[in-house]
């Protein structure tokens, strides 16, 4: 088994072994799914139409946006990256392996949500599985890119959490997970276009043929392009700004200013949409 596979296998196992990752990958999203499923299916049956993509996206955000930055910042601050560097572990592995390991966990969580959502609550299942998987992959990649970028630029764990919350909380409220974006007031609909969640919900719902989109799914290529561009930009900036050592970090203001460029596709979508 080569080094990359050893590293990947270790990272995947840690997703279950490490309590904080276990919480963010499985416990928190699944408990939220079961609680919200019970509540929303009783008070708002239309929620069930988009429940599977919404709850999958919620899990992606917990794992990629809340957990990934902490993993990277904590490891850098503790000196783990220094140990990696002197032993020849490439930066690309340090950044990509947690993203890939988390992806496998998210595939498992999404499968649980899709099966349990349909069986327990009667939620609409994706009618086009390849399309749904493609949309989910793109959505996860967009959030994972942002998570990695936050992990690279945040000066410490507290800063990482605060920056992540700036995206996470509006995504939950305005991103179409609880209430369709079309039901929001006009100004909030504009603001919602700044959020990856809005585009992710459009793409996952349409490509997966979920709920009302099952009949004649209009393909939201614009949102797919925004997510794709956002992923490429955030991962590219993360590679550019990556630091092995907290002590050798660049000035925080410059890093942050560059990192904000990752929002460009979402800003463009809000201005043009």
């Amino acid at each position, binding site marked *: *088994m080569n*080094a990359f596979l050893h590293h990947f296998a270790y990272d995947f196992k*840690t997703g279950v072994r490490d309590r904080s990752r276990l919480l963010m990958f499985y416990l928190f999203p699944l408990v939220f799914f079961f609680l919200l499923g019970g509540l929303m299916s009783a008070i708002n049956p239309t929620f069930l139409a988009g429940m599977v993509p919404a709850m999958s996206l919620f899990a992606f955000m917990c794992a990629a946006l809340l957990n990934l930055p902490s993993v990277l910042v904590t490891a850098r601050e503790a*000196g783990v990256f*220094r*140990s990696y560097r002197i*032993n*020849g572990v490439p930066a690309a592995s340090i950044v990509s392996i947690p993203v890939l390991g988390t992806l496998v966990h998210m595939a498992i969580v999404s499968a649980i949500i899709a099966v349990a959502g349909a069986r327990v609550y009667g939620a609409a299942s994706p009618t086009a599985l390849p399309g749904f998987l493609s949309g989910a992959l793109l959505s996860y990649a967009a959030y994972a890119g942002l998570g990695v970028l936050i992990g690279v630029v945040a000066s410490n764990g507290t800063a990482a959490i605060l920056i992540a919350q700036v995206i996470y909380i509006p995504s939950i409220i305005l991103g179409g997970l609880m209430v369709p974006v079309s039901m929001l007031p006009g100004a909030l609909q504009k603001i919602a276009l700044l959020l990856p969640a809005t585009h992710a919900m459009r793409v996952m719902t349409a490509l997966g043929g979920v709920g009302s989109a099952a009949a004649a799914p209009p393909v939201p290529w614009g949102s797919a392009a925004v997510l794709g561009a956002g992923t490429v930009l955030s991962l590219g900036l993360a590679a550019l700004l990556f630091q092995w050592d907290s002590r*050798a970090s660049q000035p925080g203001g410059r890093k942050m200013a560059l990192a904000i460029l990752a929002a460009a596709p979402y800003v463009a979508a809000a201005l043009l949409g």
Partner: protein
Amino acid sequence: MEESVISVRGFRKRYGAAVAVKDLSFDVKRGEIFALLGPNGSGKTSTLESLEGLRHPDGGQLSVAGIDPARQPRRLARLIGVQLQTSALPPAMTVDEAMRFFAAYHGVAEQPALVERLGLAEKRSAQYARLSVGQQRRLALAIAVCHQPRVLFLDEPTAGLDVQSRVDLHGMVRELRDRGTTVILATHDMAEAEKLADRAGILLNGELAAIGSPRQLTASGARRTRISVSTENGRLLEPGTRVGGAPLARSEEGYAVYYSDDPGRTVTSILAWLDQAGDALVDLRVERPTLEERFLEITTGGRA
């Protein structure tokens, strides 16, 4: 001429306006244990970390096994082993996983015997966060040597280790040296440096203040050999006593203490004097200046 494995020429390192190392030059030969000594802030860690490829020099040339550390860090990583003073592994990584993980990145097979040799056999399944500081340092050493590096960097290798572990580690470092590994060691433990190192360099304010074998370094100091003598009747302690031209320096817990540049002659004179004075020797100790004394002499300008 012996092969130089580490070459430092006019090395400079600064952090903002602060100059950490200025125009440092020295060589370390193949199969040599070289100790880099100095007080905190003397530039030891900057020098080591630049040689390890963790920092970029601001001037001068560095070469480790023929490689420029700043330009080819990946290639360098295959040739060197490093036990850093401040580093860590992921908290949930077990000892076995760590050995597999880093062996894989170094492109070598696992080394179960190494884990056993370093007293970690019973901790194979223990996670890094649950190891004691000493066990963590031993694991770091096992990782550092698992690929049989040509150059081994040890930064405070015995910090946090118990006496037996220190002895074991010293034995292991000597074995590596005997197999041709070049070892560069940074330590605050002068006794360790004196015991282990073939040569040592003392850094002071980013400059090389002294370099040589521990014996050469101690011999070059102003300190003389200390001779302490205890006798049955304490005749040497009587005021005004002079033996072979050496005055009594002081009395200390019943011992008469002398300092001499020619300890052989002074000891012979003391024994002859005691014989003549009808006193008998109880204990005699001859202590040459230690590396620690020489180090303090250099770093405090003789104030110690």
